């Protein structure tokens, strides 16, 4: 565990340093913002995927730990998604002239977050713990399907015209790509670490609750 923490710390420091000193991406203003915005968005997707995986594992094993981990990943994913939306809006203001442009990807991430807010509300409204955990497992699986639709499929529908740059990863320099993916890996590790910590607290809370009954 100590080694994992040390790896995260060193990796993220290196990634941030790389990110700040990298040259601008081709044809974009303030492209260094991408070293924060893109990793947060990708980490959000990974978190929702892991939430669904733990939901699936809960349905198979009925172990409360999987439910706790599923909720934790969904919670961290939502938090990262909110940050990705805010940082994306700032980048949009610089490059497209407005914070909100009705871009399919902007609509998609907000729709994804609203879906998860609704799923959390549904979970919170259930009183029976067993039913709540089973329902949540299904919600988490539904959540990743919704996230993939809103952030992956919706923007490529023929009626949609996205302002988001498509050729940046292909056309930019190799060093830009290396810096970007180093940052993606760094923030994804932070996301996983935060969700695992949150999950452990959730398990402790549930066990205390069970012991009190």
């Amino acid at each position, binding site marked *: 565990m100590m080694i994992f923490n040390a790896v995260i710390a060193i990796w993220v420091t290196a990634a941030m340093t790389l990110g700040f000193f990298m040259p601008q991406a081709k044809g974009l203003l303030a492209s260094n913002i991408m070293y924060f915005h893109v990793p947060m968005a990708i980490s959000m997707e990974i978190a929702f995927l892991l939430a669904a995986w733990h939901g699936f594992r809960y349905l198979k094993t009925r172990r409360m730990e999987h439910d706790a981990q599923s909720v934790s990943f969904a919670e961290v994913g939502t938090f*990262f998604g*909110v940050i990705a939306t805010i940082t994306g809006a700032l980048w949009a203001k610089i490059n497209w002239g407005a914070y909100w442009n009705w871009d399919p990807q902007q609509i998609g991430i907000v729709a994804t977050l609203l879906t998860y807010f609704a799923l959390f509300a549904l979970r919170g409204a259930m009183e029976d713990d067993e039913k709540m955990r089973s329902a949540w497992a299904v919600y988490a699986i539904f959540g990743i399907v919704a996230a993939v639709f809103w952030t992956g499929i919706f923007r490529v529908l023929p009626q949609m015209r996205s302002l988001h740059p498509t050729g940046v990863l292909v056309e930019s320099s190799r060093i830009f790509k290396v810096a970007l993916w180093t940052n993606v890996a760094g923030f994804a590790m932070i996301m996983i670490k935060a969700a695992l910590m949150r999950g452990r607290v959730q398990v402790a809370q549930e066990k205390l609750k069970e012991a009190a009954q």
Partner: protein
Amino acid sequence: MKLDPKIVPVLIVALITWGGIFLYLLRVEMLTRKVQKELEQKLNDEEPRA
């Protein structure tokens, strides 16, 4: 030392990102303290019976 105006939006974004992560970790910390308090309370309640 003068700050390059181009770097200002990047610094704002870095602040929002790391500030957000810090706030989330703070939330986990608060929850941990709450659980610890509940556990201590439970142990104190059980002590007289033991």
